[in-house]
């Protein structure tokens, strides 16, 4: 501990160089490029003239696009809440009731990552289609005579998103609950707290870092989602990601697409900051 953190030591600098170059080249440079493009002017054939053209940002305030952005944030927030409500009990169960099977159970949570999201989304199309297993089953148990419309609806999009992002919620919750000292629960019990009180006043507050990390990990990518609305929503649930993709694709308007991307990033950052301020810091400090 000779040089107390602040000082540069050669070994550390050497270790940090590759990652600095990596992030600089493949994260910072593209990000700056997007920022530069967002103030450029798209020509008709997909090229961009750089300059200072704020009109791309003004176009974001078109009611059509604003409505899509608002909807995107609503869907992402709903997805986050659903993942938390579904994921918390599971993480809790694995940590406190999983005993020696903990590792196997948490491995099972990660199993879906072994297949590409695209394949899994297509599988849902097969499962939920008119002649799919889901409808066959519902008809078999007599809930319906005619096949139900289960796919290409906003509900299907939400279901697909919860399915895809649930592990991102469970894993940080698990990591956070795993560190929990069970003696605290015993202490609470000894002091006369009910199980309900113990959970809300001891366990849950101490798992806040996991809740926050999980929420952020779910919220950010779901706000940028464009594959699931396309595959499971029949393209009728238009999200900001879809809109950005359109600008970089068929509309050949990279400047506007970049402005939309920057706006999405800024709004996400603001939402996260607000969330962490509101829910987070004191709880994080309590750890």
């Amino acid at each position, binding site marked *: 501990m000779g040089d107390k953190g602040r000082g540069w030591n050669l070994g550390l600098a050497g270790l940090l160089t590759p990652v600095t170059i990596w992030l600089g080249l493949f994260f910072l440079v593209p990000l700056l490029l997007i920022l530069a493009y967002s103030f450029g002017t798209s020509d*008709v054939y997909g090229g961009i003239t750089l300059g200072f053209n704020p009109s791309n940002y003004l176009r974001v305030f078109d009611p059509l696009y604003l409505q899509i952005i608002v*909807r995107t944030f609503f869907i992402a927030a709903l997805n986050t809440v659903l993942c938390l409500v579904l994921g918390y009990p599971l993480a809790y169960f694995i940590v406190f009731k999983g005993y020696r099977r903990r590792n196997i159970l948490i491995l099972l949570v990660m199993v879906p990552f072994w297949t590409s999201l695209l394949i899994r989304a297509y599988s849902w199309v097969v499962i939920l289609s008119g002649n799919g297993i889901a409808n066959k089953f519902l008809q078999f148990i007599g809930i319906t005579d005619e096949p139900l419309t289960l796919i290409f609806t906003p509900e299907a999009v939400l279901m697909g998103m919860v399915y895809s992002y649930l592990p991102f919620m469970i894993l940080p919750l698990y990591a956070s609950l795993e560190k929990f000292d069970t003696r605290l629960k015993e202490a609470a019990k000894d002091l006369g707290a009910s199980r309900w009180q113990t959970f809300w006043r001891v366990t849950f507050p101490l798992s806040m870092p996991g809740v926050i990390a999980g929420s952020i990990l779910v919220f950010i990518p779901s706000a940028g989602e464009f594959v699931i609305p396309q595959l499971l929503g*029949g393209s009728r649930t238009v999200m900001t990601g879809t809109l950005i993709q359109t600008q*970089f*694709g*068929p509309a*050949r308007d990279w400047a506007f697409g970049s402005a939309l991307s920057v706006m999405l990033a800024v709004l996400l950052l603001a939402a996260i900051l607000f969330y962490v301020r509101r829910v987070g810091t004191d709880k994080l400090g309590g750890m």
Partner: protein
Amino acid sequence: MQRRDTGISRSRFLKMMGAAGVAGSTLSVLSCQPNTSATGGGGSGGGPEEKELAFYNWSDYVAKSTIPGFEEETGIKVTQDFFASNEDLLGKLQAGATGYDVIVPSDYMVAIMIKSDVIQKIDKSKIPNTKNVGSNYMGLSYDPNNEYSLPYQWGTTGILYNKKEVGELDGTWDAMWDPQFEGEMAMLADSRETIGAALYKLGYSVNSKDQDQLAEAEAELKKQQPLLRGYFASTEVRPLVLNGDILLGHVYSGDAFLALSENENLDYVIPQPQATRWTDNMCIPNGASHPDNAHKFINYILGADVGAKLSNYTYYNTPNEAALPKIAGALKDLPGYILSPDVFQRLEVIKDLGATTRDYERIFTEVKSA
């Protein structure tokens, strides 16, 4: 715009998913590679070319025998890569990607590529098989003298439907607005094709730049949207109709023919008063490393036998009249494969609309999120 996607039977689906992944990764590698054998863009460079060719195509859009046949005949080793949309292809070339020798852009994209100066002129004296191409498929508006492009495959865009369930359609676009098929219809997730269908229905041109006509088309599409299951790629519409999930689907002809060959209850109609015909074309990018080989390849594709085998595999129409007699009977006899002159003359070619493209995209976004 993802003008075209290729015909994929369900059995071929998983293979394609894998290929798409591989394509993605190999492409990113390829585009980073320095152009090791740049003999000077135009191809007029000194000595003979290496025995190599890079073919950049839509996935699953070439017959199994096509590439091995060329390699055997010429000794030229072919590397294949795949793109997913015309815009991806354009983006790659505009970013300065080199190393592709033959590419397959659709019609309107050829016009854009000529204007953006990313493809080179073709020397037709090196492609004697040009004579096999039917006059209907030469001299189209996007490249009036075929200086830059020769056709690869072509097709129409129409309605695939379950004739057994809905009876014979009246042959107009109105069917796709019929409330009795609510929830049983799908349109293409392609702004030009779907707005185009509304424009055709109203009696206007698919290439309309008239804002009043576009507003009328938008109103039509907003009426249609609640009746649909959604907007899809043509390859996605085909299984929906085949499996009975929907009754009517807006598709490219290749997907329709694949479906018809699997289920005799289906039918394909090229609606009145007008419908789209599209063409995918072979072009040589400016940065091609092996332009001579590219000419040989284009000539090979336009051969009678090769052309027939190609279309017998893709289920798309061939522009190759010498190949036509060799098209499999099962394909040739399907409704809408061989077109009578009066059907052919009411087909329109989608043109690039320049800045109006963005109006189309905005309208389509507005319709989808209505």
